[in-house]
């Protein structure tokens, strides 16, 4: 068993930066479809189509950029932004990360506002906020997976971080 502290110490690895880059690209795609549509690019719908299996994409429930809806709804945008912020922030918060890694079920508590919000009619800022709060702690989990793999592959005595 890898102790949580040991995992948290190795959150800053090249793979973690790769994950952050992937999250930024994902987020860029969400915004790019609106930007391209506003610029009159004829194939901007292709970018929107990429997200159709995972989001309802209802324009009335989405943020708009330059008059065009983003490729994901406000809640999904909140989830993506929260996850990306989490991937960037958790390596800078080792004590908090260690506490959450020790009691990972706490991530479910952060999902409660989102589940409550789903049941009630709320505005886009609230949907964005609850999505952000739900996804931020989840971002620690892939970082822990990367840290475990990094530690497992590091010869004894070497510093994985």
């Amino acid at each position, binding site marked *: *068993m*890898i*102790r*949580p502290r040991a*995992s948290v110490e190795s959150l800053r690895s090249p793979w973690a930066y790769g994950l952050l880059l992937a999250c930024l690209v994902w987020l860029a795609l969400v915004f790019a479809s609106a930007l391209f549509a506003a610029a009159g690019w*004829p*194939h901007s*719908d292709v970018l929107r189509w*990429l997200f159709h*299996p*995972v*989001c*309802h994409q209802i324009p009335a429930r989405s943020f708009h950029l330059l008059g065009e809806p983003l490729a994901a709804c406000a*809640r*999904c945008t909140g*989830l993506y932004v929260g996850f990306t912020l989490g991937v960037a922030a958790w390596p800078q918060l080792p004590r908090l990360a260690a506490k959450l890694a*020790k009691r*990972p*079920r706490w*991530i*479910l508590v952060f999902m409660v506002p*989102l589940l409550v919000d*789903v049941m009630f009619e709320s505005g886009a800022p609230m949907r964005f906020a609850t*999505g952000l709060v*739900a996804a931020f702690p*989840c971002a620690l*989990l*892939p970082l*822990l*997976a990367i840290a*475990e*793999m990094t530690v*497992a592959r590091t010869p004894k005595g070497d510093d994985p971080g």
Partner: protein
Amino acid sequence: MMNNPKIKSALIGGGAFGVIAALPYINMLNVLCCALYIGGGVLAAYFYLKEQTSPLASPYGDGALVGVMAGVIGGIVTTFVSAALVALGLAPDWSDPATVLSELESLGVEIPGVAGEAMTQEHVEEAILGMELVINVVMFAIFATIGGLVGVAIFHKKDESAE
């Protein structure tokens, strides 16, 4: 192959949620934060951890692997079960260019002339099915991986003596 707990769990999680994600109307649950894709990963992680008799050395690494495998299986199952339901007349035919064009038009999406012509050419149904397969596998794999990690966070029993 079925003796490998990772593959077995991925087949159960990905297979079950792959079928659910293909069912008309029920698949609308997926627009709720990708609940079905994430659920496939969570179920796969649950069955994987259930098979383990001792705490794992790298639970999150294993959870991610089981999740991504469940996602790939789920994406393939979803695509082909959807195609089978369409063939049986139990679901709208999204690989039929006429259905896609009319649906896009009803949503107010303007179809560029070139795209409209391309969609009415031969083999376009196979091309649409291929694109759906790729996007289903990629999306299912990404979100089922997160599901696998969440499943580990919920169900993994830690070795308290190691802390």
